């Protein structure tokens, strides 16, 4: 879920942008390291960015009839590791702003934090937890992707509530309100995207297992079979 251009007051926009810079830098460093090990990884990440952009530009079939686009954050975090997702999210969001007028330049920092940092970290943590508890691979993946979406949604609602607290009730009342309004689109999206991620993984595991478990990916071959 994006915050659109101009939605945040100037102090908030600035603060979130400053917060996003180190996250993107750390991610870029981790990409640089994996590129040094495997030069092909650079091209792969570039094309993965394009893939994420294309996937998020497509509409997911949705229950409520509202338009919802997949975020791809949880899926990407499982496939490429959570650190690489901050720069990827930065690039995808910049493309979305300049090619689709979705999101914006002043809200880029806030959106990188919610979509590129909070979502992937939560999703990846849950995926690892699921594997540690020996849950089936499909279930772990579903939970990871759904939780990544929910974490993104929660962080976005917090960002909005911080920017627009209620006159009475302040931050918490505003948070409840934003969570309520956006749950109309975000809850079905989390479930739908989780199911789609499992289906994508199944299809890939069946037809081109090598693509998922090559060096440079964060998955081991045993983890794909569900």
């Amino acid at each position, binding site marked *: 879920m994006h915050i659109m251009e101009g*939605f945040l007051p100037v102090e908030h926009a600035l603060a979130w942008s400053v917060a996003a810079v180190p996250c993107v830098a750390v991610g870029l460093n981790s990409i640089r390291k994996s590129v040094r090990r495997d030069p092909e990884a650079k091209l792969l990440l570039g094309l993965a*960015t394009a893939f994420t952009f294309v996937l998020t530009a*497509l509409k997911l079939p949705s229950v409520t009839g509202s338009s919802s686009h997949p975020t791809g954050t949880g899926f990407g975090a499982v496939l490429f590791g959570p650190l690489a997702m901050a720069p990827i999210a930065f690039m995808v969001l910049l493309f979305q702003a300049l090619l689709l007028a979705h999101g914006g330049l002043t809200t880029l920092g806030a959106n990188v934090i919610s979509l590129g940092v909070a979502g992937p970290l939560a999703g990846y943590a849950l995926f690892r937890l699921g594997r540690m508890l020996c849950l089936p691979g499909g279930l772990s993946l579903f939970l990871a992707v759904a939780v990544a979406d929910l974490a993104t949604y929660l962080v976005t609602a917090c960002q909005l509530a911080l920017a627009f607290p209620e006159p009475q009730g302040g931050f918490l009342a505003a948070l409840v309100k934003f969570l309520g309004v956006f749950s109309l689109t975000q809850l079905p999206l989390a479930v739908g995207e989780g199911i789609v991620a499992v289906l994508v993984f199944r299809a890939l595991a069946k037809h081109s297992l090598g693509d998922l478990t090559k060096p440079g990916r964060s998955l081991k071959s045993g983890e794909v079979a569900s």
Partner: protein
Amino acid sequence: MQIDRFAYLNRWRRRHPAEKAGIAILCLLACLLSRSVMVPLLAAFFMGLLTVVGARIPWRTYWRLLLVPLGFLLFGSLAILIDLPANGFDIREIRLATGNVPVAALLVSRSFGAVCSLLFLALTTPMTDILTLLRRCGFPALLLELMLLAYRQIFLLLDTAARIRQAQEARLGYLSWFGGLRSFGLLGAALLRQTFQQSRQLHLALQSRGYRDDIRVLSPEFTFSLWALAAGGGAGLSLIVLALIAPAWP
């Protein structure tokens, strides 16, 4: 991807990207800094004028492009305008929060002005020019290289995705909700596989041409006029000054 098409075809394509980005960013700043409803609307008008009259973007297209963010904006400001009851979630208890009306009005006008500024930049400046500009501003080379690779690939993948989607729809792949999800999953898997495949091929192709971590492209020659810079910069700066001195809404 209409925006990308117009970015190459508009009348101001050959103007220096720094000029266009500078004006857009000044207007964006004016919108954000403003406490009054009028200044962002003024900025929106100015940017719309430059886009439609200056860069010759057809106004019908421009309007249609504006409609999408406007829809989001109305949905978003709805959350600020309504007032949830303090105890319980009775749907009949939801009413208009009169205290929040000035906040919402400022928000709508600010966002509207900002979206117009963003659209001006997006419609007049192709991504490759923006990447060149970012390189000059000292962005990390690795990030820009990844973006260049991604930008090139986006259109190939979009084309594939559209064709797969059409084939699936022709076979009634999106009739039911779960069927739709399954079709979408297959589409995603096919697309991801193609992504992997193309990245391998691109790697081989670049390697065989002596790829050394640097893709150099020639940028076209830009016209650079001091007069336009002064006019645009002056207008942008005066908007910022106006934003700083204009009083807030009563």
